[in-house]
């Protein structure tokens, strides 16, 4: 119990250090900044305003017509206003002076580049109050460091042994420490007892009774997530606690995020921890001990004592150097690289033959030295699969991401595949080898994903490589205590003084134990070096279509309701600002200035030369004007009920929105329900309905005008993103409209044939999407840079952003649901390295006005043989990258070209594989196990809305599907391409998992084929954004009664979107399964119950991609087709 006491105290003393980031910003008072902005705004505005003729008509909101006097008043009000602005301008000038000073030093494009090591000392002392104590340390131990000769030292297994000899003095040291230390860890805490300290916080009752290995294996699994749940401030050290308590092989990789992934990782963690604890439990103690005792030893024991421990620690850093020739030999002796496959049973679909009941295999294989992929049995991922014979190639549960063939230490440190995935987990050595493999090389990123565990680092110096600006990461190598070698450009850098101190263990001289070096996903709180201007406040502007069409569709009610509910949950701080613009053939602004009795509507009818009717009261502080905003939101849905205006002046409204936002930047949410028909940016209908099911040419996939693109670039330049919600029943030329979001880093939502009452499924979807949209995290004025090891280069980017320079993506806003993809090529041969790394750094302003940098680093091995390249192929990533490429191809060339290219991708890669494996029979279609799903996924892509031909597809639907492919992260995209089908009428309690005390059944995945649908069953199809629940005609009445709440099949209504809460086991199981599926993704999908005669039936059956349709092959036919093409390619 005392150990429990000790931990929080140590922990608590860390927290304040880390929660001091506000200090960075206080230099620029937010008020002054805001007033400066206002001021600038006014200055630019007024001249235009007064010169403008008084042609605007002003009315107040609601039925009350604003009389002339009032409007006069409003005009008269302005002089005092300007007087006020004079007053403020003094203030503004001050702040603007400092502001320009900052910007003068750094050009914006140099944002990410610019870096100065000079740091204000006040900040440093804030972050590290103990620093001063430790600064005298180097005097003592510094002399020792140069003597450390690394290559000669063995790490790993030897580490444990040498350590035990070391541990005796260490124990003594520890005990002495206790007597003197302020931490009051009592002596009875033997080494063994000390280990569980970190873990006890979560499961204290259990752990005290159990032995150490037990504790480790049990608690390592859950503790990460749980510790973090307790501290939900975003500064989460659960991960660290683990690192600190367990030695280097600790399951760092359990930085699990989704609950789904949790499960997988738990398994992995169990395995690794069991080997760890049984093999060498001692290092754990050592680490914990040193963490607690080290600071005091300086004062108690004589100076030579710390140095052995430092030496010891430095050995632990050795694994980071794996792969760099200088360190490799010594390293390989120490820790045998375990083969990928045996140690991760969950990760290989075909691995069921070697079930996970034999954890002994892991220990065995890890104890055998020098096992690598080639030496072990043929890797599972290369097992040839005869595609035409094996009908059941789908795994039982979701397809896992392949694990790079790295040694276990690096693998644990590596970035989670959810955020960062490479199409080839074994990088080919040369471009020639890559060309031979005929597989695309690229990365799929989901950098701003919602994470449950994220180490946040407040440090006055962010350590980066001096030449390539790479952030320090777990894969750098420490040459000695003072220098580290960049893993991207191989430059040798100095370790700054401050980095020597580890705030977690509160020890000195262990740069390799710093959180930056222990986690591949970290977030830094950036100093003012990373700012061009003071961090902007959260600014939200809603631009709403209120033409007749929009009122008819009735989206305003849902939006306003949703906004009212979530007004307090909008991410932001006290500076948050909000505004509204509505438009039909004119543009209406809303004055929400604090102090008004009700919102005032200002109408601008001059849409050819749009201007802002009043400078500063259109975007108002959310908290100060909350009542007015609520009034407006309550009034808006009914304000335009009788409108006869059918035109839509979207372009001018967007221009006005841009003018309104340009001083600050922020987010514009546009709701549009029809083709823009007035003013700049007007569009014409380009779709020919007769061509919808044409098999030949699909035209008009590209934009019709460059107006939206130009405006988007303007917005992007002013840090404003435009999110488009298109709710239309007719053709609205999404291809042109989407540009506004694509290049300003916004997102696009499309609700075809939206109607609030006729189409309840879409209405519910809008409601749910809005809830997520309004409350999700948001990052402002962001830039993202992707760096990779010298020799690799990025040549194409996919996603919603503007590429500002060769590797810098400008993201006005970044949201957690956005995914990105890049294509790479190998420019120089990678023969002299065995590892390559990729690093994405996302610099953004959080909604709380903090400048933060999120860094992900991925490390992958380099291979020289073709079979290894195939062994490491990540089929899901490949398919997603190909989908992105195909979208580009169909816009720049034609849809038919893109389809051919997709088929050729399968044919070429399988042909290349078959020609390497010479012993295979040429008459069969053989794929490596890693690529066995490749043809299936490609067929699914060809039948996807975006690329299908022959089936009637509306142009907007097609373009939207393409937009989704470009901007969705991999997990969502895969569900879109290949939905998951489950049979749910016979859910049992077998093979269930437990999530938060809930029992979740795990039905096996079914093939997407009508042969699997039986009339007796009920099936759930998970398409990512929508669930279809298909009920067979002869479905068991008990199921219908229990789960759907209706007596029989005939009485189930047509439009059912909810499952009733019936108190029956089958209902409970079904609901828990569906809610588990829902919880695993940010958007909660709408459930649609489908009976035979339901119109949505066609949607459901279109997703059964293995079946034949009039226009497309069945899966088997597709395979035969591929086989034919391959036999043409292959000789003999």
């Amino acid at each position: 119990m005392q150990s429990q006491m000790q931990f929080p105290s140590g922990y608590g003393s860390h927290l304040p250090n880390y929660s001091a980031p506000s200090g960075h910003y206080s230099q620029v008072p937010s008020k002054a900044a805001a007033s400066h902005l206002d001021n600038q705004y006014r200055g630019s505005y007024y001249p235009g305003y007064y010169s403008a003729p008084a042609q605007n008509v002003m009315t107040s909101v609601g039925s009350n017509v604003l009389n002339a006097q009032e409007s006069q008043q409003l005009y008269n009000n302005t002089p005092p206003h300007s007087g006020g602005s004079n007053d403020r301008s003094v203030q503004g000038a001050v702040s603007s002076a400092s502001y320009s000073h900052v910007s003068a030093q750094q050009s914006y494009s140099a944002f990410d580049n610019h870096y100065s090591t000079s740091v204000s000392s006040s900040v440093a002392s804030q972050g590290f109050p103990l620093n001063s104590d430790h600064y005298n340390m180097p005097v003592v131990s510094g002399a020792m460091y140069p003597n450390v000769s690394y290559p000669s030292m063995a790490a790993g297994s030897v580490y444990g042994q040498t350590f035990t000899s070391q541990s005796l003095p260490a124990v003594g040291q520890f005990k002495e420490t206790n007597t003197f230390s302020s931490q009051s860890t009592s002596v009875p805490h033997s080494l063994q007892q000390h280990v569980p300290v970190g873990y006890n916080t979560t499961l204290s009752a259990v752990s005290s009774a159990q032995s150490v290995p037990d504790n480790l294996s049990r608690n390592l699994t859950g503790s990460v997530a749980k510790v973090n749940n307790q501290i939900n401030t975003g500064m989460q050290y659960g991960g660290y606690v683990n690192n600190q308590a367990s030695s280097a092989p600790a399951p760092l990789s359990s930085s699990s995020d989704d609950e789904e992934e949790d499960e997988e990782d738990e398994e992995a963690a169990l395995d690794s921890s069991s080997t760890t604890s049984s093999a060498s439990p001692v290092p754990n103690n050592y680490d914990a001990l040193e963490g607690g005792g080290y600071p005091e030893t300086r004062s108690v024991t004589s100076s030579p004592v710390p140095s052995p421990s430092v030496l010891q620690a430095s050995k632990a850093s050795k694994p980071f150097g794996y792969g760099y020739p200088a360190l490799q030999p010594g390293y390989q002796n120490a820790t045998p690289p375990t083969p990928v496959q045996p140690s991760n049973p969950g990760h290989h679909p075909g691995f069921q033959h070697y079930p996970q009941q034999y954890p002994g295999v892991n220990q065995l294989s890890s104890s055998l030295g020098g096992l690598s992929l080639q030496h072990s049995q043929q890797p599972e991922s290369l097992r040839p699969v005869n595609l035409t014979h094996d009908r059941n190639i789908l795994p039982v549960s979701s397809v896992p991401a392949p694990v790079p063939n790295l040694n276990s230490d690096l693998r644990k440190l590596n970035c989670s595949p959810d955020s960062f995935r490479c199409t080839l987990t074994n990088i080919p050595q040369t471009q020639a080898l890559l060309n031979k493999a005929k597989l695309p090389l690229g990365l799929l990123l989901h950098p701003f994903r919602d994470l449950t565990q994220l180490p946040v680092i407040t440090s006055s110096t962010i350590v980066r490589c001096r030449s390539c600006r790479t952030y320090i990461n777990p894969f750098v190598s420490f040459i000695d205590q003072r220098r580290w070698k960049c893993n991207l450009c191989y430059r040798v850098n100095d370790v700054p003084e401050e980095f020597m101190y580890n705030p977690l263990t509160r020890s000195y001289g262990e740069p390799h134990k710093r959180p930056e070096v222990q986690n591949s996903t970290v977030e830094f709180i950036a100093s003012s070096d990373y700012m061009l201007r003071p961090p902007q406040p959260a600014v939200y502007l809603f631009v709403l279509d209120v033409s007749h069409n929009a009122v008819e569709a009735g989206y305003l009610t849902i939006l306003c309701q949703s906004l009212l509910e979530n007004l307090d949950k909008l991410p932001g701080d006290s500076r948050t600002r909000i505004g509204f613009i509505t438009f039909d053939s004119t543009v209406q602004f809303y004055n929400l200035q604090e102090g008004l009795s009700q919102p005032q509507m200002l109408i601008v009818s001059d849409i050819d030369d749009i201007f802002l009717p009043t400078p500063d009261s259109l975007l108002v502080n959310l908290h100060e004007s909350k009542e007015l905003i609520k009034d407006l939101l309550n009034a808006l849905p009914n304000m335009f009920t009788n409108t006869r205006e059918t035109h839509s002046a979207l372009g001018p409204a967007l221009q006005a929105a841009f003018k309104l936002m340009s001083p600050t930047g922020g987010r514009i949410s546009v709701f549009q329900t029809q083709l823009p028909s007035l003013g700049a940016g007007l569009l014409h209908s380009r779709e020919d309905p007769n061509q919808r099911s044409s098999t030949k040419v699909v035209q008009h996939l590209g934009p019709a005008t460059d107006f939206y693109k130009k405006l988007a670039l303007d917005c992007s330049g002013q840090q404003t993103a435009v999110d488009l919600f298109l709710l239309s029943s007719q053709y609205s030329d999404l291809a042109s409209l989407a540009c506004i979001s694509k290049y300003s880093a916004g997102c696009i939502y499309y609700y075809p044939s939206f109607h609030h009452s006729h189409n309840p499924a879409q209405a519910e979807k809008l409601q749910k999407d809005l809830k997520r949209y309004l409350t999700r995290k948001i990052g402002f004025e962001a830039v993202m840079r992707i760096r990779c090891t010298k020799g690799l280069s990025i040549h194409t980017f996919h996603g919603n952003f503007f590429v500002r320079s060769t590797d810098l993506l400008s993201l006005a806003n970044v949201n957690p649901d956005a995914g990105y993809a890049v294509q790479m090529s190998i420019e120089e041969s990678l023969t002299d390295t065995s590892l390559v790394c990729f690093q994405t750094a996302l610099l953004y302003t959080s909604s709380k006005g903090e400048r933060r940098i999120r860094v992900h680093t991925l490390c992958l091995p380099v291979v020289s043989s073709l079979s290894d390249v195939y062994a490491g192929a990540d089929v899901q990533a490949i398919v997603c990258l190909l989908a992105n490429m195909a979208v580009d191809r169909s816009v720049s060339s034609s849809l038919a070209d893109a389809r051919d290219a997709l088929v050729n991708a399968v044919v070429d890669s399988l042909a290349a594989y078959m020609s390497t494996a010479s012993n295979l029979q040429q008459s069969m279609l053989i794929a490596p196990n890693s690529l066995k799903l490749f043809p299936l996924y490609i067929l699914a892509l060809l039948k996807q809305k975006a690329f299908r031909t022959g089936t009637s597809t509306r142009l907007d639907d097609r373009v939207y599907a393409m937009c989704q492919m470009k901007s969705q992260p991999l997990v969502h995209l895969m569900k879109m391409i290949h939905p998951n089908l489950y049979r749910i009428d016979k859910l049992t309690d077998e093979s269930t998992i437990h999530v938060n005390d809930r029992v979740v059944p795990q039905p096996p995945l079914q093939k997407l084929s009508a042969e699997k649908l039986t009339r007796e069953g009920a099936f759930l199809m998970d398409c990512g954004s929508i669930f279809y629940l298909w009920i067979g005609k002869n479905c068991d009445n008990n199921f219908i009664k229990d789960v759907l709440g209706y007596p029989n099949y005939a009485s189930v209504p047509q439009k059912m979107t909810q499952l009733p809460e019936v108190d029956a086991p089958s209902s409970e199981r079904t609901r828990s399964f569906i809610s588990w599926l829902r919880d695993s993704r940010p958007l909660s999908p709408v459930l649609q119950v489908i009976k035979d005669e339901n119109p949505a039936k066609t949607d459901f059956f279109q997703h059964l991609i293995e079946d034949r349709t009039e226009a497309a092959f069945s899966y088997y036919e597709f395979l035969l087709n591929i086989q034919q093409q391959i036999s043409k390619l292959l000789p003999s």
Partner: protein
Amino acid sequence: MPIITLSDLECDYINARSCCSKLNKWVVPEVIGHAVVTVLMLISLHWFIFLLNLPVATWNIYRYIMVPSGNMGVFDPTEIHNRGQLKSHMKEAMIKLGFHLLCFFMYLYSMILALIND
């Protein structure tokens, strides 16, 4: 000129937007200028020089016509970093530079020849 601007972009000295607007400004004058020169050569019956100029002039016109309706000109800032477009633009600029150098000396030679003949 285009080479300098493009290499500036490559080295990250200017951003894609200003680079493209700079370059797009010159596309139309180039097309017109080249077309005029070619027509003049045809009128003055300098067959060899006309044939030399014809493919380049045609390429220029073709390139200008084939710009998709949504793009902001021959050089589009949103696409210039994709699919090695920067490299192909660079290559094209190099070839044109060589061509213009060749033309320059040829014109110079013809001019001197004409002067001597006078």
